[in-house]
């Protein structure tokens, strides 16, 4: 095995393993920590694809911010192990797993069948270093996708306002007057 493929398989194993813990662990805190692990592994996968800046952002935003929020909220709620972590229903459970299996299988099959025809599997050797690649990214973000970029700014503003407003709600819709 070459170093590159070794790296990929290690990272992939870490990602899938963590993801399995996320959906199987009964304690939500462990779920969130496993998800943080998965995020870090995905950052590694981005890096192995030479998307260094995206990997860094993945670390900072997902692992360093979003998952911290999850962990903090779970600690805030002080949730214990769940007696019944999974939803009930034999029939619907069967349908759920079946549909997921079909989707997963079909995606995998589609990938398997078609990648050869899309383009060759060997990527072009990296020709620019991370800083230059990041500059190319900036070129895209601020020229081609400028509108989306500014829209993102507006979205974040709205979310900031909305989050504060939501956190102020005292009761729910069922609160008695």
């Amino acid at each position, binding site marked *: 095995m070459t170093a590159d493929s070794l790296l990929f398989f290690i990272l992939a194993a870490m990602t899938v393993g963590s993801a399995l813990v996320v959906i199987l662990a009964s304690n939500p805190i462990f779920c969130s920590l496993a998800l943080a692990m998965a995020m870090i592994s995905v950052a590694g996968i981005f890096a192995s694809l030479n998307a260094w800046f995206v990997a860094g952002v993945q670390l900072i935003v997902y692992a360093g911010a979003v998952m911290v929020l999850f962990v903090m909220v779970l600690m805030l709620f002080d949730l214990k192990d769940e007696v019944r972590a999974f*939803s009930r229903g034999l029939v619907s459970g069967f*349908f759920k797993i079946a*549909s997921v299996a079909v989707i997963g299988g*079909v*995606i995998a099959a*589609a990938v398997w069948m078609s990648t050869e025809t899309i383009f060759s599997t060997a990527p072009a050797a990296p020709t620019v270093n991370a800083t230059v690649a990041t500059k190319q990214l900036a070129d895209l973000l601020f020229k081609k996708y400028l509108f989306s970029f500014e829209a993102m700014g507006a979205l974040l503003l709205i979310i900031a306002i909305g989050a504060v407003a939501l956190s102020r709600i005292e009761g729910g819709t069922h609160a008695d007057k």
Partner: protein
Amino acid sequence: MQAEFLFAILLLAPLIGFIINGLRWKSKNYLLAGSIATGAVAISFIAAVLVVMKLFGADAPKAVTVEYFKWMAVGGLEVPVAFVIDHISALMVLVVTGVGTLIHLFSIGYMSHDERPSKYFAYLNFFLFNMLLLILGENLLLMFVGWEGVGLCSYLLIGFWFSDKEKAAAGMKAFVTNRIGDAGFLLGIFTIFFLLGTVSFDEIISKVAGMPVEVGWSGPITLAALFLFIGAMGKSAQIPLYVWLPDAMAGPTPVSALIHAATMVTAGVYMIVRLSPLFILAPNALHVVAVVGAATAVFAATIGITQFDIKKVLAYSTVSQLGFMFLACGVGAFGAAMFHLVTHAFFKALMFLGSGSVIHAMHEEQDIRKMGGLKKYLPITHATFVVGWIAIIGIPPFAGFFSKDEILWKAFSSPLGHKGLWAAGVIGAACTAFYMTRLMALTFWGKPRFDEHKTHPHEAPPSMAIPLIVLAILSAIGGFMGIPHVIGEILPGHPGNWLEHWLAGSIAAPAGEAHGSAIMEWILMGISVSIAGLAALLAFSFYVIEPDRPKQWAARLPGLHRLLENKYFVDEFYFERIINPLVSGSKALWAFVDVNFIDRATFVVGDFVRGMGSTARTLQTGNMQQYALYISIAIALMFVYLLEGPKRLAELFGG
């Protein structure tokens, strides 16, 4: 600097001002709100100047166009968000942002005692943004967005003091009346799209370039032109849709100056000038435009003679002047229309602001019968008002003379013109001179007719005085950009008609020979000036020398006076003959058709849908995971279908 950048600043500065003031709408800090708004418009003005500069020079482009992004693409219709400054919109954008800046500045002083200055300035900025959309939009749809936007702002600002029921009603009236026009405008856009398959000005003009002139009334271009003119009628207050404009004076006076005199109401004229290559192909439509314009010019001017509200007088004057512009458009003198639009923006904004200053000084008194002798109290306002007065009645060399005279001359000499149109114009001009002099006399001259011990009129603060002075200067010299050839020839250095030269490539001219000679032009010019002068003298004698005479005349001609004083009973007519029948007809329809047929039908449909719904309701449990399950089943099926799953499986197992 890059055009994209400048256009963005030009358009976004008022929008940002609107957002800032809109977000702090509760604030009562009129100075801060006003400064933000004025600053925003001033930035916009500077950007406009910088863009317009690109049009100068020997090898300058004919137009600066930027396209930001695609707005919509529906079938054959592709509408980009694109803006253009060419020689027509350059004039308009400079006037709108320039005069707009001055009026914003004036508003700071005028709104200093108001309860909601931030809201006011936010609306004002938003208006300006929409106006710029209207002017700069590169296609009819973008123009329509601005068109509706200014209508909305106009409504909001007329009804700005909505706690007064009448003022709120005035806003409503303006909105509803404009809707009629807008319907026409939309039909016009549809017709054009149906006809030419595009809504872009550039493409419209290049597509109609080779078309023959249409004869008769039923041609598609004539139809489109007439529809568009209906839109213009609504926005620019022409007979029969002018009724909203006098009532619109319920809004704050700077609003009247900005929206209902200088900018928004001229949008109709602008639109026709913009599409002049289209209109020129429909002479019959142009005849309608000319006749409506001339009729409005005379009609509104006669009403103006008997009004006592200072702003109403100016409002009718505006309607009348707009009539002049349409008259110019109608005879194919689009350049003259633009010229009058610009000079009118200067002097009418000046007079409105002056009246604002008077109203402010008189503590919200608007009745000129209760004024008089204000000359000594308000020297600056008076001096600037005099400039505006001379300009509007058309005494050379002030701005109004040049533009009005060019319209009259074109009405006479153009191949589309007619002596009758010229005569109507002269009568309108004479009436204008009469009522403006009357307004001056009753407001500023003579003896004070208010209690000098109770009311102490005070001169405007600098923030109000500066715009007045600037506009007065512009009203005085604004006419020199369009000096007629006959005058230019006798002046030293032979200055040409700069405006005509500027607009030459952008607007269309009617085919055919102009009739009339230089001598003729001099004679007509003399006639119109002397008639206006005589009318002014007459008014002067009526209202200053012998103040009793108006009453005697009113007694002598009671019928005419009543007719004029009640504005020809048009509002009453509309109410009795159009609105009431509509209402009672609708009621009858409701009682019979609605209850018996439509309601029945909807009930049946409703019951059916409800039955379906309650069946389907069992699926909607509120359990989100079930919803997710439905989604995933659907996705799975979709994938199987897309990948031709059964076929492939068959291949796999079948061999």
